[in-house]
């Protein structure tokens, strides 16, 4: 088939189109695509910003394999993701279901649950540092609060003993620092909740009515109507939370700096430390590309799997 020539009008339209998107295009090329390509090149070099860039081939990648902190930070990140994602997803869906009821003052409740996720990150991180303080923090004050305890040794006696005598030292303890951050991550379920809420409101009422006529109980309604109808939303939230978990940075940067004993050293935090504290730009770039490959493959797997369980109307 002969290729059709563009008419003058079409050409003008195309040009105008490009002109209109050019602010974005220029920004993208200068501030996104350029740095991306530069970092790919850098990942094969050694560069401390000050001395000239030196080509080292695959040495950065070889060093990553040997670096125990790369492995440690990847494990830390996976540990966080394995708990924070399911907890966050269930928490967000649960709250969304509760807030989808027809009750008085529902708008107020929705606002209240959403507010935490719009408060500034650093402020909440500092707040949670207070809560997790081992000696004076709210968490341990509550955990070690005295509760009545009935003793049946010699008759019945009521004693008051601490609920938990030795509560964890949270951010000061390598074993408990990560669980503390996971607990804290629930603070931000409001973002996911809002998306679920929108998804829930999009489910047609007729489907529930039909299910009711068929004699479905509330659990069956949830399982056979809500979940399948909500699956595109769940899928979207899942992908976003996986990406978010792999890029988690702020909490550890502000609250722990990776301490204690590297137990909260997330992959991106270690990458940042290499780039901005130790000025190993080449090494940090190589780490960034590894992260890109990991996230890309996880997302591709998700897309492949999604065909099995996501239903689009």
């Amino acid at each position, binding site marked *: 088939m002969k290729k059709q020539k563009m008419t003058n009008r079409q050409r003008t339209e195309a*040009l105008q189109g490009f002109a209109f998107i050019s602010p974005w295009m*220029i920004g993208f090329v200068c501030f996104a695509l350029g740095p991306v390509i530069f970092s790919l090149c850098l990942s094969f070099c*050694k560069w*401390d*910003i*000050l001395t000239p860039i030196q080509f080292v081939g695959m040495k950065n990648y070889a*060093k990553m394999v040997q670096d125990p*902190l790369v492995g440690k930070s990847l494990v830390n990140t996976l540990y966080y993701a394995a708990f924070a994602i399911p907890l966050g997803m269930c928490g967000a869906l649960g709250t969304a279901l509760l807030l989808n009821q027809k009750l008085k003052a529902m708008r107020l409740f929705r606002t209240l649950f959403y507010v935490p996720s719009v408060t500034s990150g650093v402020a909440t991180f*500092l707040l949670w*540092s*207070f*809560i*997790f*303080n*081992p*000696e*004076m*923090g709210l968490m341990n004050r509550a955990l*070690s609060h*005295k509760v009545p305890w009935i003793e049946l040794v010699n008759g019945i006696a009521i004693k008051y*003993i*601490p609920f938990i*005598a030795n509560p964890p*030292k949270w*951010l*000061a*303890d*390598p*074993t408990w620092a990560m669980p503390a951050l996971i607990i804290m991550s629930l603070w931000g379920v409001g973002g996911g909740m809002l998306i679920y809420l929108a998804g829930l409101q999009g489910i047609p009422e007729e489907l529930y009515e039909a299910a009711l006529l068929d004699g479905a109980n509330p659990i069956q309604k949830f399982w056979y109507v809500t979940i399948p109808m909500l699956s595109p939303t769940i899928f979207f939230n899942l992908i976003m939370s996986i990406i978010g978990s792999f890029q988690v940075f702020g909490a550890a940067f*502000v*609250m*722990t*700096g*990776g*301490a*204690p*004993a*590297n137990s909260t*050293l997330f992959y991106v935090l270690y990458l940042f430390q*290499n780039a*901005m*504290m*130790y*000025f*190993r730009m080449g*090494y940090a770039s190589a780490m960034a590309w590894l992260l890109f490959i990991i996230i890309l493959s996880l997302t591709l797997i998700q897309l492949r799997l999604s065909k099995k369980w996501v239903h689009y109307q």
Partner: protein
Amino acid sequence: MKKILTVILLAAAAVVIGKLVFTPNVRPEYDVDPKTGHKRVIVEWFNYATPEFLDLYNTYLIPEFEKTHPNIKIRLNASLGDTGYEAKLMTLIAGKISPDIVHVTQANFPMLASKGILLNLNSIVAGDATFNIHDYFEQVMDGMRFQDKLYGLPSDFSTIALVYNKDMFDKCGVPYPDETWDWPKFLWAAKKLTKDLNGDGRIDQFGFVNVNSYNRWPAWVWMNGGDMMTPDLKRCLMDDPKSVEGLQFYVDLSTKYHVAPFSTQNLGQSFEEMFRDQHAAMIADSRYAYKFFAKGMDFKWDVAPMPKGKACRATTFIWGGNCILATTKHPKESWEFLKFLSGYEGALLNVKAGNAFPAYKKVAVSDIVLKSALSPPHDKVFLDAIPYGRQAPFPIQYAEYSQAMSKMDEAWAGRATVPDICKQFAKDVNLAVTGEVW
């Protein structure tokens, strides 16, 4: 016609963008004094400062200097707060618009010095008859040496001493700490001062606070006769029994005797806040804390020397100073300002700002410092500690050394024994100092 216009426009855009991308950044090197018409060299000073400091610099220090040096203009480049300070400095250097003078502290100096970006002052100091290095405390000056080269001049400093709550000591019937205190006495007092005041089963008054920081724990290793590195920085000494024993005692205060909670800056309540809020009877702190204490401490307090260890007395330093960058085009003029910052005038500024001690001896030992409104009765303890104060070493493999140190938290958390942690640290550091700097 339209086509030509488009081409012209596109060409113009290309030229503008190309110009933006390829024009090297330059920062003016000279200016003209508006009053006298003299040509002046611009010396740029990069630092991070709180607004009150900036105010003092702009209204007092810089005008004072420019008055006596009509051929030099000081340009202040202030980064608000210390977050990302080093990264910003590196970016300025990479962009070839590096400042001439940078503010450094004991925390970032080793990293900057190890990068080789600072100007070696050895020959400048030797060749300047107006400058007397003995006007400064030798042990403080030592902090600005890296591998036997002097890279800057200190402007302010403090040693670490025991800051204690007199009221708490009185209430618990414990005599105040003095120079007779050794480790057993210190531990005895800390135990007596640790109390559950409201009987809820949780301790709410501690004898001491255990800070896991590189400007605190090394003192306890030195007190016991140990050290972190050999003087040539070629081998780690933390696996030496004396070093292990020293660190063991310090960590035990937390994990074995429970007289000192473990504190890092990020636990929501710093050790200084614990002291201020009367949750701790003693802390090891510097004179920089006075400014913090000045706000709301309604109890009597004083300072005493750190307890004596088995081997000797020891303490660490906290300091701030300034360095000239190796890239400067005006080393002579920069050196003049550097001297000024650390000399008599700079010292007075530090006193005005309430910034610990000036490194300039004559002012530091004078009454305007030691009898200041903030001073407790035994303020001089900090100065008396200088002869046995030491600078904690850093090898050139700064990153690896810091990473090795981060593993030591395990000991403070009671998740690993101190001997094991020390062995691991020595192994990591010895491996790092023989490897290349990455």
